[in-house]
């Protein structure tokens, strides 16, 4: 029956249901991935960000919150210029990280 309204999807993140296996694999390959403290330097310097929303900070966060699909879509805008690795205060090798994400989450990219 159509009442003219229906259940609204929940925006809440349920951490119980997030798949942690791939991120654990990523962590093994890139231990530094956890070092991100969400300062946003990478995003503010990213030449692709202002046109496409690309943000390494959001990529790292999204992968831990079960948002793989959105993250992968975002990452397609990365040009691998490496400015983010230059500014990262925690010294995360972001270019290498991005390539590792592509390798581990490759299935999701198709």
């Amino acid at each position: 029956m159509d009442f003219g309204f229906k259940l609204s999807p929940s925006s809440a993140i349920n951490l119980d249901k997030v798949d942690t296996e791939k991120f654990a694999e990523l962590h093994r390959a890139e231990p530094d991935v956890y070092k991100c403290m969400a300062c946003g330097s990478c995003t503010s310097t990213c030449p692709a960000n202002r046109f496409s929303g690309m943000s390494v900070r959001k990529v790292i966060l999204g992968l831990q919150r079960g948002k793989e699909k959105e993250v992968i879509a975002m990452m397609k805008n990365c040009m691998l210029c490496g400015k983010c690795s230059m500014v990262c205060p925690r010294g995360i090798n972001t270019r290498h990280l991005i390539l590792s994400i592509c390798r581990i989450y490759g299935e999701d990219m198709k």
Partner: protein
Amino acid sequence: MKENIVIIGGGIAGLEAACQLLDLGYKPIIIEKSDHLGGHVADWNCLFPDMTPAGDIVSALISKAADANIFLNTEISFVNKLQDSYNIMLSNGISIITRIMLVTTGFSVFDASKKEEYGYGVYDQVITNKDLEHWFNTGDDRRVNDSAMNAIGFVHCVGSRDEKARNSQCSKVCCITAVKQAIEMKQKFPEAMVYCFYMDLRMFGKKYEDFYISAQRDYGIRFIRGRVSEVSENIDGRVIVKAEDTLSGKPVKVTLDLLVLMAGMVCSQDSTKVANMIKLPLDSDGFLKSADNVADIIDSPKEGIFYAGACTGPKTVPETLAEARAAALKIHLYIMKK
């Protein structure tokens, strides 16, 4: 030297000051309410950032301070102001005349049950930082079930930075304590997910940031920026916490086997009681008011009365010890001048 020096409180501040005064040739008197020395640190297991055993620190202090006059299980009944000194009546019937008092009454751990929404004392698997240290020391706490420990959460700022709980101050040590305890739990339960719910991470001290990076990099502890708003219990007795993941702007919930509340520091009732007896003012944060919060933190506004440690605000162990040493020197100089 016959000068009576009364140290109120046998925690690490009182003990360290007593050690220094003994070295300077005095015979200080320590008045301790409980049946043992060492205060809160005696209840702790390990200290950040080098995992120093708390028991070693406390037992070294106790053995060095053994020559002081120590009254355990003793409280101050009342204090009379004389011409230029004080007459202190103790609960054991002894009275002491002195012109020098060192207040080392420390802090109290915030009563986490006041944050009703976190369910401390209501839900089976909600404990405090202090309970966890007790469990590290004794292994005795039925709320901690070692056989099923898949997810553990830490809530920062419980009763700190909380105007509704009447504590707007930061308790300073809980951030780093949470990092320390999270690492310890991850060491005990390597397969468990460990989450820290924080508002800000205040890693101000020596090596704290390194400790935090290690918690992230080496232990994979998940830091979620958002204050836990509500805790409930599900049908199998585990706790569900709700928070906002403010970095993604989305509400987040997770089911946990253990939730540890990082209860903050508040001015102890003993400090306010002593303050009432000797008419010492309180500062706007509820702790004892120093003569000056920059230049004279260990001086009270009253002549002959000094402070050391957390009675004037949240302090770390090294800060407390440094203040105790400074106070001992200050007392020595005060006596020399007369």
